[in-house]
C-alpha cells in the first residue's frame, strides 16, 4: 500500500466514514472543506508520528503540509529525507 492509500484509509476511517477512499481525491482540500479541524490535525499528526515513525519534534511543519493527501505524502517524503525514519507503510 502506498503512502497515499494508507493516508486515505486513515482519513476516511477517522473523519469521513460516509465515503470510500476512492471518493477522496489526492488534491481535495481537507482543511478548507472542514474534514480536518484543529483537533483533527493533532490526531492526524499523532497518527503520522506513530505510523511513519516521524520525529515531529525535530522537523519543521506548517498547515500546508496537511491540506491535501498529496501534501501529506510530500511531508512524509520530506521528513524521510531529513531524518532516518523507517518507512512503515
Amino acid at each position, binding site marked *: 500500500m502506498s503512502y497515499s492509500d494508507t493516508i486515505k484509509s486513515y482519513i476516511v476511517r477517522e473523519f469521513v466514514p460516509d465515503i470510500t477512499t476512492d471518493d477522496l481525491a489526492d488534491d481535495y482540500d481537507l*482543511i478548507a472543506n472542514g474534514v480536518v479541524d484543529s483537533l483533527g*490535525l493533532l*490526531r492526524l499528526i499523532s497518527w503520522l508520528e506513530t505510523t511513519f515513525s516521524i520525529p515531529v519534534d525535530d522537523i519543521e511543519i*506548517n498547515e500546508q503540509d496537511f491540506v491535501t493527501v498529496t501534501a501529506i505524502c510530500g511531508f512524509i517524503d520530506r521528513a524521510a529525507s531529513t531524518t532516518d525514519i523507517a518507512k512503515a507503510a
Partner: protein
Amino acid sequence: MRTWSAEQRDLRIDFADKFAAWGEGHLERDRTGTFPWEQWKQVGESGLLKLPFDPAWGGLGQDLLTTMYVLEGLGYGCRDNGLNSSVATQLVSTGIPLHRFGTTEQKDRFLRSVADGTRIGAHAITERHGGSDAASMKSTAVRDGDNYVINGEKCFISNGPVADLFLLYVRTQGGTGPFGISTFLVERNTPGLGIGEVIDKMGLRTTPFCNITFDDVVVPASNMVGKLGKGFLILDYVMKWEVLCAFVLSLGNIRNRLERCIEFARSRTQFGAKIGSYQSISNKIVDMKIGLETSRKWLYDTAEDFLAGENVMMDLAIAKLMTSEANVKSAADAVQIFGGRGYLTEFGLEKDLRDATGGTIYSGTSEIQRDKISRILRVS
C-alpha cells in the same frame, strides 16, 4: 486497584506532614485572596517541584505516575487548593515544556530555579476572544534580527501576578489555525511586559490570576522553546500533563471530603438515628466513593497509556470530565450532608465547592470536553 511500591508510598508519606502544614490558615487566605508566600517557600524547599525533572537539572527523576501519586497526596492533605493549583501550574506550565522541549541552555538558565521554586512560572495562552479555542489566538511575535518583538494581550493567567517567568504562546505566522503558533520564555522584568491587577474570582482565591499585555516586548530568538510554529503541539503536550497533574489533586480533594463525610454521617444524630443510616445521606457518600474510584482509574490508566505512546485524546477528555464533575458533585453533596455547617465558611466545605467549580472551566470546559469526545466519535 492499583498498587504502589514501598518507595512510592514512602515518598508520599514523607510529604504528608508538610502537606497538612501548608494548608493551615487556608480559610483566612481564601477570604483575603492572599498568595501563600511563606508556604510557597516551603514547597520549594521540600523538593515537591523537583519530582518529574531530570537530576541533571536538579530534579528527582520520578516518573509521571509517581508524580501524580504524590500530587494526589497533596490534594488530600493540603486544604489550600489555591496553593495546590499554583504547584500544578508551576510544574506543567513552565517546568514540563522546558524539560521536554527546551534547549540545554534554556534548561541551564531556567529549569533549576523552576524546580526549586525560586522562580515562579506561568503560561500565557488564553486571549479575551478565545478561551477554550486557543488556536484562534491573535498575539504576535515578529522576527527582528536576532530577536522577536511581541505584541498582544493574554488573560486569566494563573500565577501571573506572582510569576517571574512566563511561557508565552503567540502567533509567529498569519492565519487562525493551530500552526504558526510559537512558544517563548519571557522574564517578568522584560520592558513592555505589563502585569495586570489581581482579578477577584469565585474560588482558588489563593492562586492569583491576572491579565498581561505585551507592548513591543523584545526577547532573543534563543528564548523560543521548541521549533518555530510548533507551539500548538507543545501546548497539546502540556495540556496532557496539566489534566493528569492538576486533576489528580481533585482526586485527593474528593478522598479527603469522603472521609470527613463518613465521619460526620457516623457521628451526627438526628431524630434518634445517625444520619448515615438515612439512605438520602448514605447514597450521596456512596456516589462520592464511586466518583472517586472511577476518576482514579481514568486518570492513572490514561497516564499509563500516554507514557506507552498511545493516542489518549479521548481518554484525557473523559478523565478530565469525570474528575472535575465528580469533584463538584462531591463538594456540593458534602455541603448538603453537613447541612448548616456545610454552608458556614469556617468548615471550609463551601470553599471546596467554590474551588471545585473552576475545574469544570479551566483546561477546557466540560462543554469542550464533551464536544471533543463527540467529534472523535463522529456523532455529527
